[in-house]
């Protein structure tokens, strides 16, 4: 215990609270004069006025409200949350550039594009660099959210070599420290074309990316290569997280970029022809509709599959009965699917069948049995007779898309 107790000096405290009012001297009792107040025994004193002030917000209807649960920032419509301006990060004088060439399928950043941008952000933030996105038109809000600082539009032709020539002019203007691409079909092709054209070192399919070293598989996937970063790198999917931090602002680029010298086109690439769902390989199909032993009306089943523009599948029992060809069998002894969505009509969901659905994310089940394994696995389960649901589906689809869809 302290031998000498601190004594309060009420006069001095009052004097410290004196504020000049208009004309008259006033005391502001809510102001804490010298930081935190301690009691004579050395304990912190509560300041109920200041605490109340901190909890006070303006509610949706303009009335003053006290929010006691610490949720001031989350109160929907509260003046406090409206007032917080979204602060964008600006990278104005970058030390270096990192170029990202996203795939932009349908003009939007996809999952792997965001991951590459996340990786670029990581490399840029380690040394004060800026991330430059080079690609066809894309909306700037999503780019800033994904962590980009600059955007350079490309003209986008059908000749990959012309695209490479454009990229080379951008690289010449910016002399980037690294160029990152996704190891997707288009990104992988572009990275290798760039590497062959510029003679820069390429490290494709990187699985671990650090500030000083990268790891990539090689030797038929039996070995891995560990070493330093290269000027050109492509990232394997789902290895580096996307940028989750604050939004970056897309600033205009100071450097000027000249157009490339047009070269004679030696190659043209047409637009994608999607596979015909009715005949495509079951293992590649994105959307499969399958029949199990609960389906007896196969004419109706085929009509449903056509109406949904799906690829037909079947359980083993159906194939054994000869109702569907063996090539449509889904499961351990059939095809393992890589589909996005699977519709199971009258399938119980035996383990051997479920093995074929390993990578399928979304399942819709139609079954009369509430306790079937397939129903437990489904995101949408309909407990009904498949023979009744299938014609209803055809009718609903025909009504929505007109005769063309049915």
């Amino acid at each position, binding site marked *: 215990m302290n031998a000498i107790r601190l004594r309060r000096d009420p006069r001095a405290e009052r004097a410290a609270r004196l504020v000049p009012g208009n004309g008259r001297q006033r005391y502001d009792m809510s102001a804490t004069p010298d930081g935190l107040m301690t009691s004579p025994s050395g304990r912190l004193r509560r300041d109920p006025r200041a605490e109340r002030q901190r909890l006070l917000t303006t509610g949706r209807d303009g009335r003053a409200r006290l929010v006691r649960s610490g949720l001031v920032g989350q109160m929907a419509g509260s003046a406090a949350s409206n007032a917080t301006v979204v602060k964008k990060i600006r990278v104005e004088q970058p030390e270096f550039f990192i170029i990202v060439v996203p795939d932009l399928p349908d003009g939007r950043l996809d999952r792997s594009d965001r991951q590459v941008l996340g990786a670029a952000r990581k490399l840029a933030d380690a040394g004060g660099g800026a991330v430059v996105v080079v690609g066809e038109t894309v909306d700037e809000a999503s780019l800033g959210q994904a962590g980009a600082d600059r955007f350079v539009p490309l003209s986008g032709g059908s000749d990959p070599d012309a695209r490479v020539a454009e990229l080379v002019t951008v690289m010449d203007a910016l002399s980037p420290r690294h160029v990152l691409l996704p190891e997707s079909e288009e990104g992988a092709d572009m990275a290798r074309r760039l590497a062959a054209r510029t003679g820069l*070192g390429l*490290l494709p399919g990187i699985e671990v990316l650090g500030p000083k070293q990268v790891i990539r598989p090689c030797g038929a996937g039996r070995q891995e290569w560990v070493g330093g970063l290269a000027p050109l790198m492509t990232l394997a999917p789902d*290895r580096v997280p996307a940028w989750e931090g604050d939004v970056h602002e897309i600033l205009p680029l100071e450097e000027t970029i000249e157009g490339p010298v047009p070269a004679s086109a030696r190659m043209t690439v047409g637009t994608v022809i999607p596979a015909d769902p009715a005949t495509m390989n079951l293992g590649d199909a994105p959307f499969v509709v399958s029949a199990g032993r609960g389906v007896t009306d196969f004419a109706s089943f085929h009509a449903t599959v056509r109406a949904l523009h799906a690829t037909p599948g079947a359980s083993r029992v159906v194939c054994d009965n000869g109702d569907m060809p063996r090539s449509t069998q889904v499961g351990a002894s059939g095809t393992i699917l890589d589909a996005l969505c699977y519709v199971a009509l009258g399938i119980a969901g035996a383990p051997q069948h479920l093995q074929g659905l390993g990578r399928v994310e979304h399942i819709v089940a139609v079954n009369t049995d509430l306790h079937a394994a397939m129903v437990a*696995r489904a995101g949408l389960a309909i407990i009904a007779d498949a023979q009744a649901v299938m014609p209803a589906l055809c009718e609903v689809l025909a009504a929505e898309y007109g005769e063309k869809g049915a």
Partner: protein
Amino acid sequence: MKAVILLSAGIDPVSGRPAPVPGEIRAIGLARELGVAQMIGLHAGPASPALAEYGGYGLTHILCLKGGETDPVQALAEAVKTHALFADGGPDLVLAASRGRGGSDTGLLPYQLAQALDWPIATDIGAPMEQTAAGQLALAQFRARGAVKPVSVTLPCVVTVPEAARCVPAFVFARQRETRVDEEVVTVHPVSADEEAGTLRPYRRRPKLISGASKDSGGGQLMVDPDPHEAARAIVAHLRALGVLPNAGQAPEA
């Protein structure tokens, strides 16, 4: 048409023993489907018995460039341009696998070779398409989910073939036995010897990031004994939310 097929010293991913690379086997099949009259296999490196296995798939003449392994691009480009085999007209096509299997597996060599020869390169070609113009080759570029992009390149060109191509030629053991594997010593002068300094070690499997979308695995929406039409509308709405069905009004593409 004359074609050169690039062969690499591939290994089997499971056993680690020398084995043909799937993309190179399919390259032989694609060359046949394109109606190539004469095929020669080129390998930058010493001859090895495993190479004869390609003969079983129909590539019965293989030339190995011993000493070329220090700079394979230079050795192969030299051979394609000036080798005595092509005295009566050079090859129109160079086919290779999209990815090697057993080396650095970057898939970069065909691109570098195309650059050295100043030929165009068409990648991930899985099948020929209907030929329209002379001096041009119409090919089908294989994309994910069975989609195809039509590609047209001017000859001569380099073509890479992915593992997903379905043009696997039949294996005939008798042909493997009559395969000619020649070896020739070549000298190359590697210009840039700045090998990326790195170390090799056994592969370690690392977990991937978890996909945020797989929340559908059980415990979803349940409808017990609904009216069939109500059920059908629920299914259509659910499929549309997943993006597998086009929106109402716009007819799905045929």
